[in-house]
């Protein structure tokens, strides 16, 4: 029970800090579930992230999977609720004000100010995930090659995940 409350409370707080979505939060989630509470290893964390990416749907689902790993289906449900609840309430109320402030210069200023913060957070997450997921030159090479192709081409990311899965199945990474 206390674990479920901890998940609900912590993800509710994370919800309001998720500038740029769930991917920006990964270092903080990692600290909470791997470093502070020892609920899983860094490798398991990276594997759950991989499963969330290989499944359809919004990338917030990584939170559902982490909740599942910690406390089963109830854990998945409260974590998802915590992650989506507070930010959804905020959107609900701000959506009305948003149209009223259409012409306000503040909207553009906030968007421009938060853009570099979001980029730093996403790259911070990328760094943390890369270190958790890669443990040899072959996996670093796969990670780098995937990044390069995904960055420079419009190839569906599923092909890249499929290629990674295949190389892993063959025991090459």
């Amino acid at each position: 029970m206390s674990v479920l409350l901890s998940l609900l409370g912590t993800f509710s707080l994370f919800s309001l800090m998720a500038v740029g979505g769930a991917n920006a939060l990964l270092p903080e989630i990692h600290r909470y579930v791997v470093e502070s509470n020892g609920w899983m290893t860094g490798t398991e964390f990276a594997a759950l992230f991989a499963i969330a990416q290989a499944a359809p749907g919004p990338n917030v689902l990584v939170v559902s999977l982490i909740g599942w790993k910690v406390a089963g289906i109830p854990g998945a449900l409260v974590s998802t609720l915590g992650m989506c609840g507070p930010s959804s309430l905020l959107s609900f109320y701000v959506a009305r004000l948003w149209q009223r402030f259409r012409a306000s210069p503040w909207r553009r200023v906030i968007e421009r100010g938060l853009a570099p913060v979001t980029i730093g957070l996403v790259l911070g997450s990328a760094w943390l995930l890369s270190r958790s997921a890669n443990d040899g030159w072959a996996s670093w090479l796969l990670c780098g090659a995937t990044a390069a192709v995904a960055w420079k081409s419009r190839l569906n990311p599923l092909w890249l995940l499929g290629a990674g899965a295949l190389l892993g199945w063959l025991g090459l990474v």
Partner: protein
Amino acid sequence: MDTTLHTPRRQELFAGFFSVGLSGFGGVLPLAHRMLVMQRRWLSDAEFTEVLGLGQVLPGPNIVNVAVAVGSRFHGVSGALAAVGGLMLAPLVIVLSLAMLYGHYQSVPALRGVLAGLASAGAGLVVAMGLRLAEKLERRGWCLVISLLTLVAVGLWRLPLLAVLLVLAPLAIALAWRTRERWS
């Protein structure tokens, strides 16, 4: 071409976002645009941009924020619940089924290999996402400094996110405010 906009019923909100949740691999927002603007015509292009801007500025999962804004626009609280429920239901069931399979077959060596490969490629996708965002960043010194500071604070120094945001977000918004004239 018929350009009139259509007001969805609650069931349609659920069904529309259900289709987005089910078919979105890697990125759901482009699909949301196609569904909302092109296929079902609930929003004009300008309205979509408006809602998307809101979803991106506010914290939380962007697509969930978009679903809340669109659902509540047509049917208040129940509309928002219908849209978010539709969006999350199928992906949640699928991802939890996958997780249970993973839990069951975790020790099979071939599956561990598959997951290791998936994890490396998945990390690469996040690197690419960050690089794509960085490409679109304003070419200004302060933008670069704020990005690097955030990256180092969160990624290398592992400072608590809340503290980092409380310092850097207001600073970045203040810097954006100072440089606003040359932009409009």
